[in-house]
């Protein structure tokens, strides 16, 4: 087989029959576009979440009574510090604050600015903040989303929080949080821990939870057992559990989509089968001629398969390319809402471009394999055309 002449002939044939192939390529590319966009979004979100998780503390301890979280007593902190192998024990106070008819809520995070932080981003944040000025009076740091919302409601410089006791607490906006890990920071308000206690209704001796790190990962399982044995109403969660549940959540969203997508795919496969059966039967005479001129069945099969592969790759590249542009350049309008639905703030999330080899292979397999399988029988049927057809 002379490769040059083969490709030359193939190109000319494809060009001549372009009207027949074009519709297939366009439809395939559209289906691939949809599929790739969804998988790109989900892998990008997963990537961002993993990045976010990386800087989170390893363990979180809280009090759970009857399956409901209740304020955690501060004395637990001392018990944790006593366990060998535990470091960075930190108490946290946080909760959601609801605005205006409860349609919006933001996350209030209380921070003890004088202590070491177990959350790496917070640590960085504090390093950048002028603590003296910040601690002087009631002040807070807010996320981009919060700032936008408050601005829209004419709270330019401060906001009056309503505490559970029914009193107002005026807090000045000190700074807008840097736009770093936007998934977490977008709806966050960071303020001194005592102020947060007041607004969220905790007593002096209570915190939301206590975090700590365990530097040796081999001890994690053991540590979980040890810590949860401290009190019957103590719940301990480690970072791996959280990661696993995120993984499951996104597998669930992506997997559900894929299963629904199978319906589209099988319809598409059937259409392909019928269409190519038709297209190829119109080529019988030409194939018969090729056979009469000395092409073997193998040569014709090779020719037809290469033709199919060209179509498969062309639509694959087109679909994936446009999906990339749509998700990572344009920010996936519309589809984003599907994935991030339930977020009560207008999300300023941008997708971090991640081109994962496994995602690309998955897309290729789920599309190319059924495609080729569908045209395989039509390809065979036309390839074994008897050469005498050329004489008719």
């Amino acid at each position, binding site marked *: 087989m002379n490769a040059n002449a083969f490709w030359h002939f193939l190109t000319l044939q494809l060009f001549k029959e372009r009207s027949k192939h074009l519709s297939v390529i366009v439809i395939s590319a559209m289906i691939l576009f949809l599929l790739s966009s969804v998988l790109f979004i989900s892998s990008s979100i997963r990537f961002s979440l993993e990045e976010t998780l990386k800087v989170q503390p390893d363990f979180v301890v809280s009090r759970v009574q009857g399956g409901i979280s209740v304020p955690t007593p501060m004395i637990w902190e001392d018990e944790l510090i006593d366990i060998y192998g535990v470091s960075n024990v930190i108490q946290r106070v946080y909760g959601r604050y609801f605005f205006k008819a409860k349609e919006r809520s933001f996350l209030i995070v209380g921070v003890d600015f004088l202590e070491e932080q177990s959350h790496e981003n917070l640590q960085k944040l504090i390093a950048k903040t002028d603590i003296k000025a910040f601690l002087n009076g009631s002040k807070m740091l807010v996320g981009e989303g919060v700032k936008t919302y408050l601005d829209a409601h004419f709270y330019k410089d401060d906001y009056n929080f309503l505490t559970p006791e029914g009193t107002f607490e005026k807090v000045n906006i000190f700074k807008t949080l840097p736009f770093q890990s936007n998934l977490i920071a977008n709806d966050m308000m960071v303020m001194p821990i005592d102020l947060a206690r007041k607004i969220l209704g905790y007593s002096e001796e209570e915190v939301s939870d206590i975090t700590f790190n365990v530097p040796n990962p081999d001890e994690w*399982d053991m540590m979980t057992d040890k810590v949860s044995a401290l009190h019957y109403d103590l719940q301990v969660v480690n970072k791996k559990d959280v990661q696993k549940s995120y993984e499951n959540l996104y597998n669930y969203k992506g997997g559900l989509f894929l299963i629904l997508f199978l319906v589209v795919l099988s319809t598409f496969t059937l259409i392909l089968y019928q269409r190519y059966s038709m297209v190829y039967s119109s080529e019988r005479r030409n194939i018969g001629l090729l056979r009469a001129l000395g092409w073997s069945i193998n040569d014709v099969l090779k020719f037809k398969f290469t033709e199919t592969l060209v179509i498969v790759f062309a639509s694959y590249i087109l679909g994936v390319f446009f999906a990339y542009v749509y998700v990572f350049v344009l920010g996936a309008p519309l589809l984003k809402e599907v994935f991030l639905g339930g977020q009560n703030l207008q999300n300023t999330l941008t997708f971090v471009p991640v081109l994962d080899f*496994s995602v690309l292979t998955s897309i290729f397999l*789920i599309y190319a394999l059924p495609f080729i399988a569908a045209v395989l029988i039509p390809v065979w049927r036309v390839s074994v055309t008897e050469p005498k057809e050329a004489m008719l």
Partner: protein
Amino acid sequence: MNEVLLSNQIIVFLLSESTLFILLLVAFVVSLKVLVKWDFESFMPFQFALERQAYLVSTIILFVFVMKFILVVYFIFSIDALSLLLPGAMCGAGVIKANVYGSYLLVLKLSILFLLTLWFYIHYYDMRTKNHQWFKHKSWLFSLIFVFIVLELGLDFSYFSNIDTHLPVSCCSALFGQLEGANPLPFGLSVSLLLVLFYLLYILVILSLKSGYTLLYILTNILFVYIAYYAVVYFFGTYVYQLPTHKCPFCMLQAEYAYVGYLLWASLFMGTYIGLSDAISTLWLGKTDPKSKNIVVWLLSLFVLLCTAYVAVYYLRNGVLL
């Protein structure tokens, strides 16, 4: 629903396997019909139709042949990715051992690849005889392959639907690590003896291949794969990981080690597949292909060289062995 079955890769994998199965089922039914009615001497139009249908069978098998190779790599890759979901698993080793089906499935997949390679050889020779001399041979072989493939599909689904994501599995250090006093190596070998055997067998494989002692070659090559597996897990692998206690055939497939495991295992298995297929063709059909032999020499040498290189580079860098 099982969380594993919702993993994107597993869905794609099972779908691909099922699609291939449907194609193979078509091929199998056609193949049986052709096999039963085949009479190459006949001039009936029916026989000519059968000859055309034989092309359908071989086209499907060839397509499946290519896809199965890609899918085995994808399977291993997905298994590796699943280790995130399973408590305790650090790599594919733990995931494979997550239930009883895993190891059988992996061995079955590797065997099917071998049988497909063998089929490909017989098909190649059959196509180049003027009376389709080996037609029945290859059809029977395909029937055998099909039985294996049915089994494989069943195991695929049983395996993935029976992975319990709450049950902790062992990580590779527990699976392959040396228990006190227990020697994991076959025949009670020590590591140094294992290495001697490894290089000796390699030389023997090449010599028997080159000199045409086919039976000896088959024996030594099978033994070589067996010994090579242990040599990689218990010796060469530790140099890949640069950690004397890290013994695992799977971790080297991960990005941290530049995916070298794929190259390593692929060169060993591909070399063996091609070599054994050629050897069996020699014994069975009396056909032999010198080009295949060269490829085998190249692949197996690449494997041995790669293994050795890890040790050598480590030694040159650190001046000591592990």
